[in-house]
């Protein structure tokens, strides 16, 4: 036993001093292969460089521009924007910008209605799909189709559906004068319906995955111990899905906050500004007003706020995991 151990230990022969000296003489690169830290650094370096280029640089540039009055109309190159440094006036301005806050309010309103609607519909569908039934796979595929469609196309579909002479009015037996997309009260509802149609399947998919993750034995145990299907769902399935629900809500809320394509195609933010969400507001500020430094300040503020909310939501999800 002792001999065997000794043999194993001496199995790796000591490196001859001449080899070390030889390697030293070939400089830094010869040593990289033998130093796991250096080797790791060079393996990771390309990915880090790429990240710097696509994430850090645009963010830094945006921060830089947001602290100036720079616009492309000035004819000054962007890196010389410091010449119009404004000591953070853009950030002070956004605090008192009524149009911005109104757009933010409409975005939050849209989120507050669309996301819970998508959640409840997704949860209901997932509950139905917990059971086996004829055609389950077929309906599953059909249900997932909307989220595969390009949002602009969804916008176009609902633009056509909600025309005065379109199929919605026709089905509901409403007169052709009944306007959806040009009515100040109904335009947002139409947008919410379109968004809910497209994104309920994602909610359904995430929630179904969470439900199927609850061990079958626990549900059987619940049934044996006298719980009805509904009691099983409320007392065993839902409490075990808290983290999945949190992730689904955070994901959809963040996406809903950024909604652009559907609204752009359906109403272009109208009538007036009734469906102008924060993304459309920024779009108009950028391409109509060319107020780039202000847009940069708003963009950064939103990014920071959303990251904070998402991080809180996800850390809650991580704590509730299992």
């Amino acid at each position, binding site marked *: 036993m002792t001999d065997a151990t000794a043999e194993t230990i001496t199995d790796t022969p000591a490196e001859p001093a001449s080899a070390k000296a030889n390697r030293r003489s070939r400089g830094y690169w010869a040593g990289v292969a033998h130093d796991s830290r250096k080797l790791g650094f060079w393996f990771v370096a390309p990915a880090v460089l790429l990240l710097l280029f696509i994430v850090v640089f645009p963010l830094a540039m945006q921060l830089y521009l947001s602290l100036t009055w720079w616009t492309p109309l000035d004819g000054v190159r962007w890196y010389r924007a410091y010449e119009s440094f404004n000591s953070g006036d853009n950030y002070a301005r956004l605090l008192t910008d009524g149009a911005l806050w109104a757009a933010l309010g409409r975005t939050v309103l849209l989120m507050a209605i669309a996301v819970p609607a998508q959640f409840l519909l997704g949860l209901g569908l997932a509950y139905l799909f917990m059971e086996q039934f004829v055609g389950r796979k077929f309906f599953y595929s059909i249900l997932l189709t909307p989220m595969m469609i390009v949002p602009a196309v969804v916008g176009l579909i609902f633009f056509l559906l909600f025309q005065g002479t379109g199929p919605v009015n026709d089905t509901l037996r409403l007169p052709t004068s009944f306007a959806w997309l040009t009515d100040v009260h109904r335009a947002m509802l139409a947008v919410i319906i379109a968004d809910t149609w497209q994104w309920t399947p994602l909610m359904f998919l995430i929630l179904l995955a969470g439900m199927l993750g609850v*061990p079958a034995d626990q549900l*059987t145990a619940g049934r044996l111990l006298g719980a009805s299907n509904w009691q099983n769902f409320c007392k065993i399935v839902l*409490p075990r899905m808290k983290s999945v629900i949190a992730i689904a809500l955070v994901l959809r809320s963040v996406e809903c906050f950024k909604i652009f394509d559907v609204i752009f195609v359906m109403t272009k933010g109208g009538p007036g500004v009734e469906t102008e969400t924060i993304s459309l507001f920024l779009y108009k500020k950028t391409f109509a007003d060319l107020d780039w430094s202000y847009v940069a300040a708003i963009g950064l503020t939103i990014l920071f706020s959303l990251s904070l909310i998402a991080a809180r939501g996800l850390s809650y999800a991580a704590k509730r995991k299992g």
Partner: protein
Amino acid sequence: MNAISIQGAIKKYPKFTLGPIDLSVERGELFGILGPPSAGKTSILKLILGLVKPDRGKVLIGGANSDEMEVAERQISMVFQNLALFPHMSGRENIAFPLTERGVSSKEIAARLDAVSDVLHVGHILHKNPAQMSGGERQRIALGRALIADSRAILLDEPIAALDARLREEMRVELKRLQRTNNQTFVYVSHDEEEVMAIADRVAVVIDGRVAQVGAPDDVYNKPNSLSVAQVIGSPPMNLFQGRFSADGRHFECGDIVVAVAGIRDVPAGEQGTLGIRPEDIHRAGDHATRRFRISVNSIEPLGGYTIVNATLGGQLIKIRVSGQLDGPDDHGGSVVFDERRLHLFDSEGDRLGME
């Protein structure tokens, strides 16, 4: 009256058919179901629970046909292999779950919880969640959840398989004590023969979806009614020799191994058969022993209280179980004898010969 009775139940699955199953479990009995993995043991439990309906035959619960009974109406509890405790509930909530679901008053829940936690000695862990408990503690909570429901019977599906060996031994003693204390009907399923034999009043051996034998553990061990039961029961397994009965029906011959089969009825003279001898029924040959067999020892496994000798007899590997430890390397080397009172003979169909 039987607590549970299965009469000619058959359940067909795409690649497996269970049954026909005929079983009856008496009230207050600890009934074991034993068999190799995928033999259909858990499917029998599902029939009893009502999680699957038999294609033919019926299941009687408390003497009544269970065809129209819902799962919960059967009043049968189960302890799952993975225990299936609810991880988001405390030990107290887990145990009380069946009562809260039935709308039992909180006063009665508290009283019954106290009674169950006294029996199971779990009062000190009721506030913990399952993740904070040890394997044995989780086991007790799962049992408590089954006991508190005041069920007709408790089904236990390999309930201690996930525990370590020492804890398994402790838990099976505990299970027996609980069953006796409460005079509960237990149906205990396991592939571990030692576990079932140690605690069951009666055992059903299930092989390939059928009940191969039902009886007291001693009977099943000492008089397996078929070759397949003989192969499943016993650790180390029974040594089997395939050979032929002599033309006069007085001997069984397998190469150099020749044993007398006197006293066994209906010997199929001249036909093929199988001789079985348990490892503990092979002994070192004394000086005056007749009908001795030469063996060559391959290896020895000293296991403390007993020793397993792996040897070759007539070109076939056999196992010999010896009490205690061997005196020296040559002990049990050389020649051995079979205890001829404890031979097991099976005909070419695998059925036991000479059974009462």
